Structure formats: structure tokens, C-alpha cells
């Protein structure tokens, strides 16, 4: 009883700080948005796009740091969007296929970014900045009110776009060729998916860091696919799993002092194992 009272007291103390609420709001929104796109990206065999684009964003951040910009979003977001469009729109006619293109851009941007940060350091603690960007250990807990407002606006745009174009996104995910043959502009919807993906990746870097973004995108979708079969149910389940794991991960990180990004990803892995086990049990019964 005493332990639970002290736990609640500690909880009250920690949640009296506004940045904790900012972290929860932003974390849940980012988790929701990334899970919605995650299903499409996994089915289109672009699971590793999160990693690639996050490394591009890392390189763009290095450029923004050298340029001395106070708000690196002016550089990071456009460069990431352009990269997403190039990667996701190349399609089947590309000379360099999807996974090779992602790998090329990913490692190239990471190397260039780290080189620039070392040649033109914008702070005294380069390794600290790199570590925070790559792993997102506490960056979600260092958000300002303006960051939260920007994130809310972008999340609303992403969710609205997903809801408005749900049927087209469904069609371009499963049968792009048929869509083109039916006269629907599949390229436009691929472009929309690319732009939304870029926005989500840039936002998600604050939550889990560059290296762990792919987990945030793919694990909820893969977990849902173990149990559900229809696109709609997979999307809904993926969203629920992602939001739950993000909320639990942030909560555990705050109470136990663990890094936020990796705690969330470990939660995603645990849920995936549970769903995987559940699929085994279900197959055994049928």
C-alpha cells in the first residue's frame, strides 16, 4: 500500500512538468501516424524506407547546423520529402531497385552528415548530438510548446490525408498496375504517400531517433498482420498497438529512467511476439 502511494506520488511529481505531457501528446500522435502508413509501406515492400529517410534527415540536420539555422525544419523537411519522392516514385522501371536505392541513399546521407558535423561542428558535444539524433534518448522530453503545435498540425494533415484517400491508398498498395490500367492516377497517390512518409519520419526522429524509426513503422503493422486479414482491421489494430506501445514506453522510460526510443521499440517487439504466439495458437485450433 505504501509502495503504491509513493509510486502515485512520484507519478504526480513527474506529470506536473509540462514537457512530460508534451512528450505524451507528441509521442502518441507520431505513433498513430506512423502505424497508419506502416501497413502500406510493409505491403509495398518498403519496410526499410524509414531508416533510409531518417538518415537523409540526419544529413540534412548536419547541413542545417552548418548553415546556422535556428529551425532546421526549413532544410530537413524539404530534403526528406524530395528523397521520399525519389525513392517511392521510382517504381518498377527504376534502374536501381527499391532496397538498393534506399541503402545507397541511407548510408550515403549518414556518412556525409557525420563528416560535415565533424568538419563544421555547431556545438561542443558532437557525440552527444549524434547520439541523441540517432537514438532519441531524451529528445521527446525536450520539446517546446511550438514543437507540439507543429506536430499536432502535421499529424492532423497526415491523418486527414489518410482518411480522405483511404480507398486510393488501399488500391495503390495492392494493385498499382490495375489502378493505372483503370485510368486512376496512381503516381499522384504514390506522391502523397511519399510526402506523408517523409513528414512522419521527420517527426518520429524526435521520438525514437534515426536508427529505430523502422521499428516504429513496421512492428505494429507486422503484429497486426499476424492476427487480422483485412486491410481495415490490420490498420486499426496496428494503430492501437503502436499508440499503446508508445504510451507505455514513454511512461516506463519516465518512471524507470530508460531511454525512450529503445523502450518503445522493445515494447513493440514484445507485442509482436505475443501476436505471433497468438497466431500459432489460432492455426493450431483450425
Amino acid at each position, binding site marked *: 500500500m*505504501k*509502495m503504491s502511494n*509513493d*509510486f502515485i*506520488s*512520484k507519478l504526480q*511529481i*513527474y506529470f506536473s*512538468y*509540462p*514537457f*512530460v505531457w508534451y512528450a505524451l501528446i507528441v509521442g502518441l500522435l507520431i505513433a498513430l501516424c506512423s502505424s497508419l502508413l506502416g501497413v502500406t509501406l510493409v505491403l509495398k515492400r518498403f519496410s526499410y524506407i524509414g531508416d533510409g529517410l531518417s538518415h537523409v534527415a540526419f544529413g540534412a540536420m548536419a547541413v542545417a547546423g552548418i548553415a546556422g539555422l535556428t529551425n532546421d525544419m526549413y532544410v530537413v523537411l524539404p530534403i526528406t520529402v524530395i528523397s521520399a519522392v525519389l525513392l517511392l516514385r521510382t517504381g518498377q522501371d527504376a534502374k536501381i531497385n527499391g532496397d538498393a536505392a534506399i541503402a545507397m541513399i541511407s548510408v550515403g546521407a549518414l556518412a556525409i552528415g557525420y563528416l560535415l558535423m565533424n568538419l563544421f561542428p555547431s556545438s561542443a*558535444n558532437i*557525440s*552527444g548530438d549524434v*547520439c*541523441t539524433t540517432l537514438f532519441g*534518448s*531524451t529528445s521527446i*522530453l*525536450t520539446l*517546446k510548446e511550438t514543437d507540439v503545435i507543429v506536430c499536432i498540425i502535421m499529424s492532423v494533415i497526415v491523418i486527414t490525408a489518410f482518411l480522405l484517400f483511404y480507398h486510393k491508398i488501399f488500391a495503390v498498395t495492392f494493385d498499382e498496375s490495375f489502378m493505372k490500367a483503370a485510368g486512376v492516377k496512381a503516381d499522384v497517390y504514390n506522391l502523397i504517400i511519399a510526402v506523408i512518409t517523409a513528414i512522419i519520419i521527420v517527426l518520429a526522429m524526435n521520438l525514437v531517433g534515426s536508427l529505430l524509426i523502422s521499428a516504429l513503422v513496421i512492428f505494429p503493422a507486422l503484429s497486426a498482420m499476424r492476427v487480422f486479414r483485412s486491410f481495415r482491421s490490420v490498420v486499426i489494430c496496428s494503430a492501437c498497438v503502436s499508440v499503446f506501445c508508445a504510451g507505455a514506453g514513454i511512461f516506463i*522510460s*519516465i*518512471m*524507470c*529512467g*530508460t*531511454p*525512450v526510443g529503445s523502450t518503445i521499440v522493445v515494447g513493440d517487439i514484445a507485442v509482436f511476439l505475443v501476436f505471433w504466439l497468438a497466431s*500459432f495458437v489460432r*492455426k*493450431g485450433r483450425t
Partner: protein
Amino acid sequence: MKKKVLSVLFTLTLFMLGSCSQKPSDSANALIDAIVSEAASTDTVKTTSEAVSAEALTAQAHGDPSVDIDLTVMNSTMIYSIIYDMMINAEDYCGKSLMVDGYFDTMVNEALGASYYFVVIPDATACCVQGLEFILGDPEKAAEGYPETGKDIRVKGVFDSYVEEGQNYYYIKADELTLL
């Protein structure tokens, strides 16, 4: 594959059930008897110790009640985040008392001929650090000198600001400086 997974799970379950059904050894039984008899004979002592342990637990949760923000009882994630928030929203923290652990560091501004003293707080992986400037409020303590650079210290004081060369700087007006 399914059979392999089920057999592994079955084996693990057997191990767990087997360990639960293990009979306690004679020495374990003696220990349990000793604990029970000790508990039966120390009711009044237990009440006092319960009260003390309750206070200790409360202090562990809330920290030093004489300060508004006790960072010494928080985990590294919260410490780093709160200090970052203090740097960004410093005005919200001015006038609040706090207590913080870290290591001591100094900086000299040769142009002004001034020395600055910091308590540096690393995060859990020690790759990121935050430093809080502090100034000993008591002139006698300040005259005793500051510890060696790198020594672990605890600083207790009030968060305040000063103006130097037209810029606002925030620091801890330290009432206590303890070597850990």
C-alpha cells in the same frame, strides 16, 4: 515448427512447475522459523521501524522536503529533461529551490578575469551532459574554496539570474555544497 515451439514451451513450463514444487530444505525451514519467531516478539519495534521505513520511502519518492525540486531522487531521464527545461524556460524556475548531484567543473573567462563554477550532470549513457552554474552564497564558504575539477558534488540552493555584459545568465545561488 509449431511442434518444436510447443515442446519448448511445455519443457519450460515443466521446469517452472518443478522448481515451485521443490520441498524447502531443513536450513530453509529453520530460517523461516527464525523469521516468524522474531516477527512475533518484536511487534512494538516493528511499528516504529514501519514508521521509519515509511518516512524513508516517502523521502525516496519526494526527496528533500526543504527544496522545491530534488533532482537527487529522480532517474537520469527525468534529471536530464528537467535541467534542459530549466535552460529553455528558465524564468519559470527562478526563485525555486533545488538540489542536484553531478561533478564539479570550472571555466575561466580570461577577457573578464572571471571564473565560473558548474555542476555537470550527464545523462544515463554519459554521452550528453548539462551544466548548471552555481555560486556559493555564503562568502565564508566561498573563501574556503571549491573542490577539484571532476569531483562528485551535491549542490543545494535557489535558482536565480544575473546580468553580465547585457546578457541574462541563470545559476544556482548555492546554500550548500557537499562533496560526495
